[in-house]
């Protein structure tokens, strides 16, 4: 069904030769020097280094620490269009994605208005067809207006190209409501993605419940707010044999609940964000509003459980939950600030610096988890092979830089990693054979 394809604005595929470049494709176990010829939107040829002449092609000769790998895929971003374009729009958000090495993203429906009907989804996809720099897929709402009391027209939305459904930003509080969505999923299809939070436990909270919140006098959100809902909904999914994806897991108990559900054969998957993998509530000590997100940054044991989950496969993929907010919206007291951090431009470099460099995670596994989101939504898993779509990123693994020092492609700058040391920089991003991000030509690298 062509409608389910990701959409972006038309671009002209280039003829590109990556000459004598280290090609890293963890999915096929490839890690060797190759010449890679891209033309007409696809990878034409992978050949022995120095064997292709690249006639008529722009030739990129790789230096020592450059690696060519599959462009990343982010199944969880907020592009803020329609209605909140002062934070981000389809163009600025996908430009940020390209700058971070992403070749595809999935946008959330908590916009103004909420994407909860087929006409709205159609008009948004039309807009993406004009504005998006990298392909975008959409998850419309599970319930009308994210209100939690009436199912959206899931079948009509699927026919209009919905990859699945989510009320992200809010939980489906009512178990009965979610059960109906899971039942209806049998005819509608698509993945049901869940933001897990029990509002009776999280109400009024702005940060992780614990010693720091208690000493700061900021109401805490207990991790059980998330984990009890993960456990509940994993049971619902198992009972209805539904397909559920848990968004942005943040704590030990949630990881355990997903592991149990998987062991019992439930069709569940889950994601973790770079910020939950790299930061804890200690980062909130100064009440910096860039550190306010939902779910909140949790404890060190929680962070370690997420890293272990990535290694073991309990956590299926990395998602940024890229959540831009305008400067004046974040320049308020912590408890008043909106939740969310941007993440597309820093995801790889932050994780590479924080987890790969110190030896906590293998580079290959990081690259895999940064692309695994596509398969979870029924999209082809990216591969580097002749005939495959040319969705590639050329990364300078040795580049050490400070997040924010070059400015941001995103319209917003509320990044929790701003000012932190990053390691590795996406130099060139190729999407469907077109160059969508290019620091080589800009002369920045």
């Amino acid at each position, binding site marked *: 069904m062509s409608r389910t394809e990701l959409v972006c604005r038309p671009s002209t595929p280039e003829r590109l030769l990556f000459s004598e470049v280290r090609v890293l494709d963890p999915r096929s176990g490839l890690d060797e020097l190759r010449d890679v010829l891209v033309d007409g939107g696809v990878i034409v040829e992978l050949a022995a280094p120095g064997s292709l002449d690249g006639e008529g092609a722009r030739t990129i000769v790789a230096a020592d620490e450059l690696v060519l790998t599959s462009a990343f895929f982010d199944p969880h971003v907020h592009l803020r269009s329609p209605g909140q374009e002062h934070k981000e729009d389809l163009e600025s958000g996908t430009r940020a994605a390209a700058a971070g090495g992403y070749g595809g993203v999935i946008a959330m429906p908590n916009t103004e208005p909420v994407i909860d009907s087929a006409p709205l989804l159609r008009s948004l996809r039309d807009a993406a067809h004009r504005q998006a720099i990298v392909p975008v897929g959409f998850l419309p709402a599970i319930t009308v207006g994210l209100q939690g009391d009436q199912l959206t027209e899931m079948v009509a939305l699927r026919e209009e190209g919905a990859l699945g459904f989510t009320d992200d930003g809010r939980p489906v509080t009512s178990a009965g409501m979610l059960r109906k969505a899971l039942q209806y999923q049998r005819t509608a299809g698509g993945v049901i993605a869940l933001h897990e939070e029990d509002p009776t436990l999280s109400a009024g909270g702005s940060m992780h419940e614990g010693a720091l919140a208690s000493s700061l006098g900021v109401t805490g959100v207990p991790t059980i707010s998330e984990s009890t809902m993960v456990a509940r909904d994993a049971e619902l999914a198992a009972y209805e044999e539904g397909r559920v994806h848990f968004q942005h897991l943040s704590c030990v108990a949630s990881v355990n609940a997903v592991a149990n559900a998987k062991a019992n054969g439930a069709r569940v998957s889950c994601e973790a964000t770079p910020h939950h993998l790299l930061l804890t509530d200690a980062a909130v000590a100064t009440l910096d509003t860039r550190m306010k997100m939902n779910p909140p940054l949790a404890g060190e044991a929680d962070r370690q459980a997420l890293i272990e989950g990535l290694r073991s496969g309990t956590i299926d993929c990395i998602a940024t939950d890229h959540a831009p907010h305008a400067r004046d919206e974040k320049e308020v007291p912590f*408890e008043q600030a909106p939740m969310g951090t941007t993440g597309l431009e820093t995801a790889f470099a932050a994780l590479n610096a924080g987890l790969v460099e110190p030896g906590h995670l293998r580079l290959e596994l990081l690259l895999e988890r940064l692309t695994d989101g596509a398969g979870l939504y029924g999209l082809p898993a990216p591969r580097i092979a002749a005939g495959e779509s040319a969705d590639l990123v050329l990364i300078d693994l040795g580049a050490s830089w400070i997040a924010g020092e070059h400015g941001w492609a995103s319209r917003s700058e509320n990044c929790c990693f701003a000012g932190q040391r990053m390691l590795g920089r996406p130099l060139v991003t190729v999407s469907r054979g077109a160059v969508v991000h290019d620091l080589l030509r800009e002369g920045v690298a």
Partner: protein
Amino acid sequence: MRHLISVDELDRAAIERIVRQATHFADISDREIKKVPALRGRMVLNLFYEASTRTRSSFELAAKRLSADVVNFAASGSSVEKGESLKDTVLTLSAHRPDAIVIRTPWAGAAALVSRWCDAAIVNAGDGKHEHPTQALLDVYTLVSRLGSLDGCSIWIVGDVAHSRVARSDIVAFQRMGAKVTLAGPPTLIPREIEAMGCAVRYDLDEIGDADVIYTLRMQHERMTEPWVPSLREYATRYQINESRLRSSQIVMHPGPVNRGVELSGEVVDSPQALIAEQVKAGVVVRMAVLYELLASSPTAASAPAQLGEVHV
């Protein structure tokens, strides 16, 4: 000292210095002419986003006794109600070039934020449930005046710790002055892992006889969006400080306003063991000392007195 945002920024020597200065101002306050010219020509702006009578008037009185000009800005009935942000309000008011801004808001960290947006010395008069440093200083002053020293003193803070900025500031200040702090209250009102602040936690008053000082907290209905205890009656039965629980050698304190018959019995409020009126009195002289410390020694002062340090009049 540039601002007073948090008690945590004060070491024991700084607290003792403020207490000493407050003692000097207390001497002045007993005279017929209560005013000194220390801050003549300086402007103190009271910026209050929460209803407050006693704290605001205490600061106002303190500033006026030091001959400063005082401007009161209450958030209700102002541009704030028209949707102006905290930052814009502060920038607008800064155009008047206040020397100090005394700020109270319902949000943790707001005073620290404001200190980054303007040049004035910032005094935190309460930021959400976070801190209320001048209350802690006046509590220390009151106790030192009565006991001489807090070293080895056992202080129990009883009641709604969860919603109390006074408790958080007092826990830090009392410990810094050498006291041992125990928190007691219903488990629903004692925040998780608060022990990390160095205090003990009890859910009953069985051992309250060990306390030298009992610091009771107000049951803050205005901050509660849901019932935290089954009833005020059950709370009073279990946690009220009354004659049957109070030993004659113990001191009772309360930041006010008191809910008589809830956290304290009326008899205890009116007993000589209660230092509640002393605390209110201490509020003015301690806030004088804080404003003096912040403004009289500031290098940018246009009319700073030649003699820095403690004022002996």
